[in-house]
């Protein structure tokens, strides 16, 4: 397969530490290697698309910024649209985090940083090579919007959407009569909404929730089924209600336990779940702020649903029917009820509308019939092998498995705030702690790692609800296996970050390395 490697100096922040020329020479066998000052510049973006077409490139590696950067900085993710338009499948794109996880934390040691950069690019190459193309389904978006919570912001956003012709469902556990100033302010809006045939106020709660952006299916406790193209969450600060909604909406929570937006400054109404938007609530928020947030939410929903067709990529768990024996383990494991029994074959199958692709069932499957489209088991093992090839001299080397929810952002954050750490921490990103098959841990020791650190979400912060719990259960049973091979069970350490973006994980990883030195 023709793979193109695009290296970014990130305006010097990467190139002053990592010798990119040396990296490029190392990968000289690839059909296309380019070094840019910044991959997001006008000229770079134009050239990348041209180069891909000219060289018949099928897989792309973007090495520079963290994958989180592309989510966080507005419109940075457009580069993926450019790649896809140039014919690259999403599963054939890998991002190598040279800045936050190599150049910044290892800035005093160019040589090791360059060496590590090569290893991380090797891992990305393996991922692109071993991944199959992800399939798409076209979703014709429902012009319905479910607004959870008729707060001021929710009412204003709904009014705008109703004007545009959307059907609006307001969902509240119970409707309260407005009082005083608020009543004065909202009376005309409420009158408009209540007299609109396309707007309904429902008093109920959610029993079941699944689907894609463009077509979410919501089962309510009162028996009603609502279909919505998008969701707007506009609830007040209410921990109880947040906890009730969490298993369905799976939005990130802040330290206090309230839902939070994707990024407080750049993606205010977006959330970690595509198709679910929110109007953040704060007690001291001015009316003008609320209105502008409501308008942002309205624009975001319009942008999403104003398409004839939304392409949804099926990053799911797949079943090999030749291998599945129908034991039912995945059915018991999946909290999203995405693992189903085929009534005819009595084998397992995946309900793609429900599957979130977390990979918990892939770990659980005792036959290996299940695999994750975004990161196959074979790729993860190969990645561990490649990472183990990094030589750290006499000091212990650890595999740092980070979940996408908390572990990975934590490691990024540490780099960003200037924490320097030693290069013998080799990061491997997984979708969720639940994806960590204990076989992977054994492979890590087998390939010579001195320790395995797993950095996962704090107890009730797992975006896949039970991924971190299931990891803990597996690890508890598993320690005895490590011990039986003469490996000190303490060589496996699991951290739950108390603050999802704190440098806590790195601090603990360094303590872990110190501990390993003492063994």
């Amino acid at each position, binding site marked *: 397969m023709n793979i193109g490697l695009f290296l970014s100096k990130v305006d010097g922040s990467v190139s002053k530490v990592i010798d990119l020329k040396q990296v490029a020479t190392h990968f000289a066998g690839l059909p296309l290697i380019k070094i840019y000052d910044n991959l997001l510049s006008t000229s770079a973006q134009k050239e990348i698309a041209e180069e891909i077409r000219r060289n018949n490139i099928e897989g792309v590696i973007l090495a520079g910024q963290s994958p989180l950067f592309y989510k966080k900085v507005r419109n940075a993710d457009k580069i993926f649209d450019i790649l896809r338009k140039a014919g690259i499948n999403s599963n054939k794109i890998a991002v190598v985090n040279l800045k936050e996880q190599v150049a910044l934390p290892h800035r005093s040691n160019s040589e090791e940083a360059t060496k590590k950069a090569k290893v991380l690019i090797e891992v990305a190459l393996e991922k692109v090579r071993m991944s199959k193309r992800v399939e798409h389904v076209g979703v014709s978006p429902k012009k319905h919007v479910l607004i959870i919570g008729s707060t001021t912001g929710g009412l204003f956003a709904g009014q705008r959407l109703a004007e545009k012709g959307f059907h609006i469902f307001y969902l509240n556990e119970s409707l309260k009569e407005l009082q005083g100033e608020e009543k004065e302010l909202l009376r005309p809006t409420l009158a408009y909404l209540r007299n609109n045939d396309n707007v309904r106020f429902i008093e109920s709660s959610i029993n079941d929730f699944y689907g894609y952006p463009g077509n979410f299916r919501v089962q309510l406790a009162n028996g009603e089924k609502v279909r919505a193209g998008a969701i707007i969450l506009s609830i007040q600060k209410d921990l109880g209600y947040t906890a009730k909604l969490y298993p369905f909406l799976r939005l990130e929570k802040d330290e206090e336990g309230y839902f939070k937006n994707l990024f407080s400054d750049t993606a205010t109404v977006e959330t970690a779940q595509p198709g679910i938007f929110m109007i953040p609530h704060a007690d001291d928020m001015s009316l003008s702020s609320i209105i502008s947030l409501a308008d942002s939410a309205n624009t975001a929903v319009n942008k999403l649903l104003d398409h004839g067709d939304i392409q949804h990529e099926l990053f799911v768990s797949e079943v090999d029917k030749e291998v599945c024996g*129908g034991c039912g383990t995945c059915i018991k494991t999946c909290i999203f009820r995405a693992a189903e*029994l085929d009534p005819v074959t009595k084998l397992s199958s995946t309900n793609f509308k429900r599957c979130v692709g977390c990979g918990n069932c892939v770990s659980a499957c*005792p*036959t*290996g019939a299940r695999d994750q489209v975004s990161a196959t088991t074979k790729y993860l093992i190969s990645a561990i092998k490649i990472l183990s090839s990094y030589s750290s001299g006499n000091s212990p080397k650890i595999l740092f498995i980070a979940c996408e929810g908390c572990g990975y952002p934590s490691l990024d954050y540490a780099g960003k705030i200037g924490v320097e750490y030693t290069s013998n921490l080799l990061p491997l990103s997984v979708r969720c702690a639940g994806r960590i098959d204990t076989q992977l841990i*054994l492979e890590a020791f087998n390939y010579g790692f001195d320790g395995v650190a797993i950095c996962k979400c704090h107890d009730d912060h797992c975006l896949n609800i039970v991924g971190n719990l299931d990891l803990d*259960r597996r690890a508890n*049973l598993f320690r005895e296996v490590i011990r*039986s091979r003469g490996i000190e069970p303490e060589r496996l350490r699991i951290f739950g970050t108390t603050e999802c973006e704190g440098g806590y994980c790195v601090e603990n990883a360094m303590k872990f390395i110190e501990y390993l030195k003492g063994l």
Partner: protein
Amino acid sequence: MGKIKVATGILQGCFGCHIAILDLHEELLDILSSMEIVRSPINDVKDVPEVDVGLLDGSVSNMDNENVAKIFREKSEKIVAFGTCACLGGVPGLRNLFDLQSVLNRGYIETESTVDGKIPSSDEIPKLLPYVKALHQVIDVDYKLPGCPPTPQRIKEFFVSLLNGREPVLPKKNLCHECLRQHKEMYVPKREFITDSVHSITELEHIDETLCFLEQGVLCMGPATREGCDSRCIKGNTPCRGCMGPTDDAMEQGAKMINALATILPAGGLMFLEDVVGVGYRYSMPVSIIPHVMEGK
């Protein structure tokens, strides 16, 4: 066409797999009409002549086993790892949980009944290898026929395939596929464990012969075990112990079973079995990801 020439041999094993050939009874005579066993421990021929098929039973545990395996490889067109020990290392492989010196000390010196014990040493006695291996870890193997022992029916099918020029294939699914017991709780998409507690079979007064063992709180290795044994133990109302080894797509049995059990049975209850390793790796230690104790960890 002449008869296919077959040689069989025993490495470290219990002869159970050879006995399973005899368990074919009269059916063996059908096979022998087109196949000749020119050498086996039963007819007590010492040398290995040139043969079409060499069947080896047992794991590779000492230097003699290694030597015999190599001779068989040299003399045989096709080599068959015959039975669990040859395929997976089997029960003898459990000694890989200890280094060789500890095994010898325990066996010859430290056992409770031993007085003035001494580790035997002589040029006549083959030296034990540091760790037990499966056959394919020593020589190239063409076919595997796991089972402790393989069922006579499987053995027959295997030979019939060979005799008809078909490639013998192993089933790819887990035992649950051929197990006839009913699943109820296992198919309910709810996160609650399927039972409140875990039992050893000996403490249960009644075991439902039609219901999945796991659903009765009895640990059964079936989910992490390859099918193809005709679920003999299950039919005898005894849970699977995993002798067929892992499926091809799982890397190993022990870790996979742990991954699965974490969401099926209450973990505290499982710990009561007190032998996660013995249960998970009873037959497959030498082919597990870390096949023996690691020194210096």
